[in-house]
């Protein structure tokens, strides 16, 4: 963090700066309270309550997240759907079935109650669909201008499937990287709506709970599923680079294989953005054994939100400095890097 004395907006972008903030400031400051495992402060932590009480108990996963999206309502969802889906998804990719969640609301003085009602009704609907109950909550109101309408903080616990055996360490050479569908719809839908760009008509957020996808994969494939992640901030690029960095393995992906939503592609091209680095809120990246790849795709494709699931690449050999490389549609090669913060639209 040297040279940066204040928080930049880019520290929240899910890229390099976010990682530096967590590793350089947050974890050292929390010290021993930060947990014993290197993966602590990951999107979800797996806990072993059996160890606390000396008996046998299911493993639990725990997650927390805070939602500050602007605008509060956007094509395909709102801050309520986002809060529940995001929380559920963080548990889902840890191999857990979401059971209970908390919801802390911070509201701005002057917020329309009708709007609050709409986003909470969305949250409730998604929670019921996902089988998770909102068991505790908190409400605070801050002065006008202290925040933009609504901020939602959640925490949740889920029950980890006994069949789940997930982690970076389980990824091996030849493992297949499976993606559940086209990229960038959430980030672009929000950006277009936020900026009043006339593209939004055809573009909707992919915001969805993916616990059904992850549960089916684990149920059917068990330990052949090696790792799962929902590629939110930083997009697929951040997820792949993180996998490469954590496993020390090169990753190869084929651009031609990556499904594309035409409206998102058009918006990304117009704004000069790379679909690989844009946020998704209803997608799954799963790393599975090569033998299970075809099956994994078939299982995912049974779900409406993953009809276009596909193998996009594979994990390679270990390397001192691992690289994520993409074979482009044109037949050339490029590297895929962790975005700095949030990519900014181009000028011309």
């Amino acid at each position, binding site marked *: 963090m040297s040279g940066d004395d*204040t928080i930049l*907006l880019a520290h929240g972008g899910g890229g390099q700066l976010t990682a530096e903030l967590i590793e350089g400031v947050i974890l050292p400051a929390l010290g021993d309270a930060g947990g014993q495992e290197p993966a602590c402060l990951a999107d979800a932590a797996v806990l072993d309550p059996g160890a606390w009480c000396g008996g046998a108990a299911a493993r639990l996963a725990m997650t927390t997240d805070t939602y500050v999206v602007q605008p509060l309502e956007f094509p395909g969802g709102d801050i309520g759907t986002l809060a529940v889906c995001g929380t559920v998804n963080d548990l889902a990719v840890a191999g857990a079935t979401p059971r209970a969640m908390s919801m802390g609301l911070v509201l701005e003085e002057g917020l329309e109650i009708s709007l609050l009602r709409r986003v909470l009704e969305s949250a409730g609907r998604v929670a019921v669909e996902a089988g998770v109950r909102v068991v505790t909550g908190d409400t605070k109101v801050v002065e006008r201008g202290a925040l933009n309408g609504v901020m939602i903080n959640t925490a949740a616990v889920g029950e980890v499937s006994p069949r789940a055996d997930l982690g970076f360490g389980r990824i091996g050479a030849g493992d297949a990287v499976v993606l559940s569908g086209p990229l960038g719809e959430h980030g672009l839908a929000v950006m277009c709506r936020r900026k009043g*760009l006339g593209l939004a008509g055809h573009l909707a957020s992919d915001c969805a709970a993916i616990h059904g996808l992850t549960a089916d994969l684990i149920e059917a494939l068990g330990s052949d599923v090696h790792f799962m992640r929902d590629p939110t901030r930083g997009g697929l690029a951040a997820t792949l680079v993180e996998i490469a960095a954590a496993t020390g393995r090169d990753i190869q992906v084929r651009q031609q294989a990556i499904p594309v939503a035409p409206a998102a592609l058009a918006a990304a091209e117009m704004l000069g953005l790379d679909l690989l680095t844009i946020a998704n809120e209803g997608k799954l990246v799963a790393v599975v054994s090569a033998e299970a790849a075809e099956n994994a795709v078939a299982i995912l494709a049974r779900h409406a939100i993953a009809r276009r699931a596909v193998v996009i690449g594979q994990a390679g050999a270990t390397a001192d400095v691992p*690289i994520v490389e993409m074979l482009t549609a044109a*037949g050339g090669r490029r*590297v895929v*890097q962790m975005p*700095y913060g949030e990519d900014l639209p181009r*000028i*011309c």
Partner: protein
Amino acid sequence: MTSLATLRAAIDEQGRRLAAAGRPRVQLMEICGTHTVAISRGGLRDLLPDGLRLVSGPGCPVCVTASGYLDRAMHLAARADVVIATYGDMVRVPGRSGSLEQARSAGAAVEVVYAAHEAVALARRTPGKQVVFLAIGFETTAPATALALQQARREGVDNFSILGAHKRVVPAMKALLGLPDVPIDGFLCPGHVSVIIGWRAYRPIAAAFGRPCVVAGFDDVQILAGIGEILRQLADAAPAACSVYPAVAADGNVRARQAIDEVFDVTDATWRALGCIGASGLDLKGEYADFDAVRRFDLPAMVDYDPPGCRCGDVICGRCLPADCELFGRSCTPRRPVGPCMVSSEGSCAAYFKYHWRPRPKASP
């Protein structure tokens, strides 16, 4: 649609013709940041024959803006009564006193806008503050600035002004051809700019300098088609201005150019590294002078300089490739950029780094 394979075969064929005619080495320049990014993102250099080299020209709006401009913007950002409205690419460019991003974090009012009219709307929403729009970019963004100024004048939005640094592309291309150490055999001309100025605007260059000027769009097919057409013209010794991009008309967008002419006069302008180029800039006409931030505020003098060791100036002239700079990938990265070409999403260094920088040598395919 012509297939990529067909286009590659055509490029190879023209490359062989040129080699047979005694021109085994050809250097083409793209002068559009979006092309630079698209070429890197598509890995298109891997598809070109040996001897054909692409260099980037002054096509990134942030990169061609002289350093003194940012110092002026920082000076404005430090004022409590000023809100800076800027395209996002500008916020991370480091100047002598830091970047607008750092200024914002320290409390300065810096708003990212996507279009000039948003800055006018911001001014209307923010009475009591002076909103200064950082009006940079080529003929692509100049019409939007012109329309925004017309709107501000019509509606009497008197807390709006611009810090103007719009640039015109064709005079810069002529200036580049005058550089003794930058061989350029042909230009891949910008798609967006050409939508405004039209492909005929490049005729004087093709005629007077004998260099093909081909406008192309931004997908792989368009770019390879444009390169193929340049090579064909070179092999036929028939340099011309033309377009393979259907969106570009011969005379461009007449209405947009009118808007520019209504608000701006053509003037000399200072470019990073290229210095002052005649008739390459746009200055507000007398009736819009009140909207000129330079008149409204007391600003430091404009100077141009590159940070020590930084070769952004050479990069945007095509004098070297990003990796030829000692700082590239070492002390200059997107995380800690030294020069503007590493900051802007359209900058050559950022594109080369993002899509091609490898911490270890490339393995064979």
